[in-house]
């Protein structure tokens, strides 16, 4: 038995960032995968200790550059918990809508990249990016920025939604709902796709719990845990979300969970948009000032369901700066599972597995 050692990365078309995998192959079968991370380590946790509270969102949202607003919200939520501020009803509605839009954008990105990873000539990739672009247009309309929206403020938003935002959103999400059926048909009717996805990279329910994977990867293995449902926040308290699970835990299940979650997000956005008009309170939160209010809680733990999984912010508060900000990033722990999942898979399927795990290197390295 000769082992071929292939070095994938740090610069490789399908790793989705600067990460290096040392793959040991016996013939075409993977014997061992050793991930090497840290090429994009920016020390955000350390930087956060040196900045004022509201200076940090521009950094935290660059952790996950595919779904920045979700991280932004998780951080601001932690600071709100530390200072004992509760956002108004209207702000909660707006946050829920924007976060679900961000989830749609992120899942579309992931589905597109996955199709590219298993070897399509960018067709579904480009379609997904086109649809994601329409969602980003909405977010741009709401926040003024296309990618990095520093739009969360303590107790609310930077600004209220523009007047015709609700109509635009409704049009777009209806279109996306239609497109999701098209995607599912386009990909699942393709025999090569099902052959490449089904039964590949299986992560059983017990393994998934043991390895601590999170988000769609966990739910694809049949564990019904979603922070939005088990520890509801914002409008998820009122409009209950269904945690979408699949039982098989293979690549196909992970892809399918994302498709189902987009459909679920569309359903939730429709519900919240109905409630938005009648919601009370001021959308705008406290504007950023050179001095922030003093925290009332020393330690605050906030859980949020990001598109990639659960993020736990462990914030130890000081008077003007965080004393320690510890981020449990979903991509980090999902990537840690890669060597377990891909053991015994074919070399070509390794990239499908990477795509289905959907990690963002910025989020892994922090």
């Amino acid at each position: 038995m000769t082992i071929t050692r292939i070095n994938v990365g740090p610069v490789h078309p399908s790793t989705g960032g600067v990460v290096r995998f040392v793959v040991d192959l016996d013939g075409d079968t993977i014997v061992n995968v050793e991930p090497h991370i840290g090429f994009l380590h920016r020390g955000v946790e350390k930087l956060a200790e040196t900045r004022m509270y509201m200076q940090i969102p521009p950094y935290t949202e660059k952790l996950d550059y595919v779904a920045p607003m979700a991280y932004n919200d998780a951080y601001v939520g932690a600071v709100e918990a530390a200072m004992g501020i509760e956002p108004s009803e209207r702000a909660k509605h707006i946050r829920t809508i924007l976060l679900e839009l961000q989830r749609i954008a992120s899942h579309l990105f992931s589905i597109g990249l996955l199709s590219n990873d298993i070897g399509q000539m960018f067709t579904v990739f480009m379609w997904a990016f086109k649809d994601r672009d329409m969602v980003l247009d909405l977010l741009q309309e709401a926040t003024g920025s296309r990618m990095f929206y520093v739009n969360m403020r303590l107790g609310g938003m930077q600004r209220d939604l523009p007047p015709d935002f609700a109509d635009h959103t409704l049009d777009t999400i209806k279109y996306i709902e239609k497109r999701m059926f098209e995607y599912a048909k386009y990909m699942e009717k393709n025999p090569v796709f099902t052959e490449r996805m089904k039964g590949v990279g299986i992560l059983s329910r017990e393994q998934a719990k043991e390895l601590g994977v999170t988000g769609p990867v966990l739910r694809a293995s049949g564990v019904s845990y979603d922070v939005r449902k088990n520890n509801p926040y914002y409008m998820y308290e009122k409009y209950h979300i269904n945690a979408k699970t699949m039982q098989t835990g293979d690549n196909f299940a992970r892809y399918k969970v994302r498709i189902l979650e987009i459909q679920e997000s569309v359903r939730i956005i429709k519900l919240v948009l109905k409630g938005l008009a009648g919601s009370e309170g001021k959308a705008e939160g406290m504007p950023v000032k050179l001095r922030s209010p003093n925290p009332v809680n020393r330690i605050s733990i906030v859980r949020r369901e990001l598109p990639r999984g659960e993020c736990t912010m462990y914030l130890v508060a000081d008077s003007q700066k965080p004393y320690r900000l510890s981020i449990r990033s979903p991509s980090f722990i999902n990537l840690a599972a890669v060597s377990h999942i891909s053991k015994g898979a074919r070399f070509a399927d390794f990239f499908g597995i990477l795509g289905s795990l959907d990690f963002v290197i910025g989020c892994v390295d922090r």
Partner: protein
Amino acid sequence: MPIQDAIGNIFNIGYWLGTGNLLYQVIGIIIYIIVVSIVFSIFGYMMGWLERKLIARAQYRHGPTYVGMWGLLQNLADMIKLLSKQDVIPTNSDRYLFGASLPLILALSIFIILLLPYSPGLQGTTLGFGLLIVFTIISFLPLLIFTSGFSSGNKFGAVGAQRSVLILLGYEIPVLLVIAAIAMFTGTYNLNGIVNAQQSNYFVLIMPIGFVIFFIAMLAEFERPPFDLREADSELVAGWLTDVSPPYYALALFLDYARMFLGSILIAILFFGGWLVPSYLSFIPALFWIILKAFIISVFIIMVRATTFRMRIDGILRFGWIWLVPLSLINLIITYILFVG
């Protein structure tokens, strides 16, 4: 038909001068090779443009727009850029084998071009067993790809090269069985004869199973998606071309498109009657029809590329041996029972 006759003998200097001297024939063939290669390059180039444009449209993009009309010169600009880059030969590589492989592929491709008939008489050389030679060369190309990838000293290149040969193992037999059926039906290996045997019916109607097998196997032979495993850009970076320098890379890209057009012409000759059309359409020269047919087949190949995902190597071999080999045998038997025996 005097026009057809003139087209057919356009490079035969002896025909124009009224002599049959061997020297004139050799000069004529050389001129023929040069002219046809240039024409073929233009078509290969057009294929490159067409693929970029069509795939862009399949993805809601514009594709090349700025360089030239409809971006027609974009590929030329890319080619110039690639050719002006430095030629680096990796130290780990077997430099002679590595350097010689790609030019050899080019030379062999030109040899195929020489053997194919494009309209009555317009053919570099008429051989009684042209079909066999064409497929011998086509089967030989993966071996050159293997030497190129394997001698590059890069692991991705080696993996791509191995896959290229593995595909050859799976798809050589169905192709040969299908052309055996064609040869059995027509009683000749002469490409001209095969085209002329389709006067009444195109072979696509006579052996539809054979056509489907041949089409899939041609995709595999020319390693178009879903069988583009030797390049596999999302897995193997660029597969057998990973360590190839830009000038050679430009050549490889060009060869890819030229070979796609070559495959289309071969399919047109074997299954769609080459230049033959119903008699009410024959006022347009024969050359136009064969190119039109090849173009339509190429567009279809491009559409397949835009749609499908890449197959895995074991899946490809399983598909080839479990489905294509038995089906091509069935095709052979049916053809024998219905039309020959």
